[in-house]
């Protein structure tokens, strides 16, 4: 018996079937409309970025101006050191992500696969801080940064948020799912803990590490409140902060502002296209926490 025999035979076009076919088309069209509405702000961003400044508020609004002004992008790029903002963002998010993933993975290993006195108590302390909002930390953190002389520095942008409990928690949950036998075999062959961690546990945890890395990177890249407090030097600004400075300085030069916004959205769009799998898995995993 093949599966083909289970397939429903071709049915004649009844009114019910016609109705459900029409329903399907309507549903498809409506969801595409919803998608276009969601995209409008982005479409408008790019459209305005390419218009001459006199046509930003044309009535009726038009998607394309009388000329395509690629020059706006160059002007926006040069108006404030936008290349510098991108570089700062890459440095901060890149180094931050490496520190978060490395230290979280090590700590998660100690919390999940090693036995020691006080393990569960210490882990509970970590868990307890997950609920504390960032805002509780920023005031003393700001004072601490001033005392350390770190204001307007990369370390001030990176270090304060590189040791939160979230990464440790996420990776611990993942490490707990790996069977003990894997490590035991290696240990019988004389591997020490570090070898076992780097050769066995880490390679098996690539999906979880990737998820944590993507979320951490986006978190650093998009972060706004903390850079706003700790950075006043235009050369140390990250992209969101630079955009805010741009807003303050250009006022109503909307075409330049939109060009700058478009530039700042691009890396995020690329990340979603390339790494959607990690993002979706990460969110789905955290959502399963409710189950």
């Amino acid at each position, binding site marked *: 018996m093949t599966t083909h025999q289970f397939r429903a035979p071709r049915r004649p076009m009844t009114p019910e079937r016609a109705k459900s076919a029409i329903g399907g088309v309507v549903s498809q069209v409506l969801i595409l409309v919803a998608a276009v509405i969601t995209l409008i702000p982005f479409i408008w961003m790019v459209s305005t970025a390419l218009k001459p400044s006199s046509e930003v508020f044309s009535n009726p609004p038009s998607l394309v101006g009388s000329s395509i002004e690629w020059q706006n992008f160059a002007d926006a790029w040069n108006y404030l050191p936008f290349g510098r903002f991108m570089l700062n963002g890459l440095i901060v998010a890149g180094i931050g992500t490496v520190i978060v993933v490395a230290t979280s993975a*090590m*700590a998660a290993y100690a919390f999940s696969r090693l036995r020691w006195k006080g393990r569960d108590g210490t882990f509970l302390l*970590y868990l307890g801080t997950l*609920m504390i909002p960032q805002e509780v930390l920023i005031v003393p953190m700001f004072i601490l940064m001033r005392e350390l002389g770190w204001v307007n520095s990369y370390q001030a942008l990176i270090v304060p948020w590189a040791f939160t409990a979230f990464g440790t928690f996420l990776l611990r949950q993942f490490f707990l799912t790996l069977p003990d036998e894997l490590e035991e075999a290696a240990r019988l062959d004389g591997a020490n803990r570090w070898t076992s961690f780097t050769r066995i546990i880490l390679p098996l945890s690539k999906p979880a590490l990737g998820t944590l890395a993507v979320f951490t990177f986006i978190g650093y890249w998009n972060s706004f409140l903390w850079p706003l407090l700790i950075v006043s030097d235009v050369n140390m600004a990250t992209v*969101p902060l630079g955009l805010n400075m741009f807003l303050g300085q250009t006022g109503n030069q909307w075409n330049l502002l939109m060009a700058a916004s478009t530039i700042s959205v691009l890396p995020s769009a690329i990340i979603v296209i390339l790494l959607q799998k990690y993002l979706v898995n990460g969110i789905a995993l955290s959502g399963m926490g409710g189950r």
Partner: protein
Amino acid sequence: MTTTPTQTPPPTTVPEVLKKARRRGVGRSDRGAALGFLAPNLLGFACFTILPIGASLVLSFFEWPLIGEATFTGLENFITLFTADPVFWQVVGNTFYFVGVYVLLNLIVSLSLALWLTSKVRWKGFLRFVFFLPVVSPIVANAVVWRLLYNQDDGLIAWFFQTFTGTSGPNWLGSSEWAMPAVIIMSVWAGFGYNMIIFIAGIEGIPKTLYEAAEIDGAGWWRRLVSVTLPMLTPSIFFATVMTVISSLQVFAQPFILTGGGPGSSTTTLVFYLYQQGFQGYEMGYASSIAWSLFLLIMVITFIQFRSQKRWVHYS
């Protein structure tokens, strides 16, 4: 005669077994290794999480200007905040307004789209990308575009109102009545994609047999939704609600960019007020007391939600 078993072990086997077990780490503490693995994270965690939490609590009992003398004032900050600061209660009200409407709209939109995207439609991958893009796009960039869209006379939204209703519609960002709805609409657009992904994962995790059984019982589309999908999805809905409430209580960037907290203080939220007190007024003690009030608020609301989940969340 033997007093302890170790003195007369069966000559070879027991030490062998013990040795082997020890080598495998059975029954032995890994304290040395654990300390090594934990040290980098624990050190940072102590300096940049535990220490600031403690310091923040201490600060909230001081009058602590950034430059100048700090004086211990006990509960003075909290008393002033709760009884003598008219702005604080308005700010709490604004925050509740935002959280209430935002969370409700966010859940409705994200749940509808999740149901839609798990039904028979095409280009699911592309659609998911579109709905998810605003979530990862920098919130500052998002808010800046909406500022343009909301422009009173010449914005795209005003033009839309003009065309379809004949009036240019509300003065979105310039009136204290419409500024908060404007902030909420923009925030829903920027945030619903996250919960949508949670719900899609939840719906895909529902066993197919339940739907087959429902179909055999003659359940139509609506019946299957109400009797199978939604009850099975309640754990995800609960989780999404708790997390969205916590994060939206901390809203800052949207009002900061869109309205600057105004007009007046009609869109000043709790974190925005903390920012004003701490980083424009440099009252570090007072700002800390606002931070701790926010934390307590989050604790209380989350606690209430967990207490109420027994009534509506189904764990299979």
